[in-house]
């Protein structure tokens, strides 16, 4: 497994772990009727801090374990795989944009979500965008891992 592939696996795990915690927090807060914009902002801030901390730690640990390849530049295969991952992530982000616009234009379509979360509409849109960006990120990493394993 190359340095780059290992790094992608760890980033994927970090992304899943952090965002699972975020959505768990949102879910349990909404179950207890205690979900508020302040609580959501606090959860988002936690996500940002954890992401930065864990990504720094991950790069440090991987560089220490595999110090020979720590300054490794992407070669053409890495670039091609990165491009394929970004392309699939882009499709998800585009779909997210359409869903966010549809939510704004036709709020009736996402009434269930509004009732479940009990948040002002702008916070619902923020969460739609967050979910879309998260799925895009997971898609990007998963695509890259897939092509590293299967070949391209």
């Amino acid at each position: 497994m190359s340095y780059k592939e290992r790094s992608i696996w760890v980033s994927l795990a970090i992304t899943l772990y952090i965002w699972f915690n975020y959505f768990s927090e949102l879910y349990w807060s909404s179950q207890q009727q205690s979900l508020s914009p302040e609580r959501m902002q606090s959860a988002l801030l936690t996500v940002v801090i954890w992401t930065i901390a864990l990504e720094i730690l991950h790069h440090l640990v991987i560089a220490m374990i595999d110090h020979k390849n720590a300054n490794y530049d992407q070669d053409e295969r890495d670039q091609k795989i990165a491009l394929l991952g970004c392309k699939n992530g882009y499709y998800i982000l585009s779909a997210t944009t359409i869903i966010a616009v549809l939510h704004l234009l036709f709020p009736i379509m996402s009434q269930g979500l509004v009732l479940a979360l009990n948040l002002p509409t702008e916070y619902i849109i923020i969460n739609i965008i967050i979910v879309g960006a998260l799925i895009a990120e997971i898609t990007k990493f998963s695509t890259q891992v897939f092509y590293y394993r299967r070949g391209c």
Partner: protein
Amino acid sequence: MAKKITNNIRRLRFEHNEMTQQMLADVVQVSRQTIVAIEKDKYSPSLEVAFKIAAHFQLPVDAVFSYQ
């Protein structure tokens, strides 16, 4: 059946003083994993890398790579 690009790199490496994948990777400036992927026909290299590999073995490109 769909055609694909295959190669003789593995054999050529052994005929060149049992050159390692890492040595070839250093010569053509890619990672060892990319050489592994090329040898297993899991990745078709760019023309530039294909020419670099062929030049290293002092062979024409079609003696290293074939489309079949």
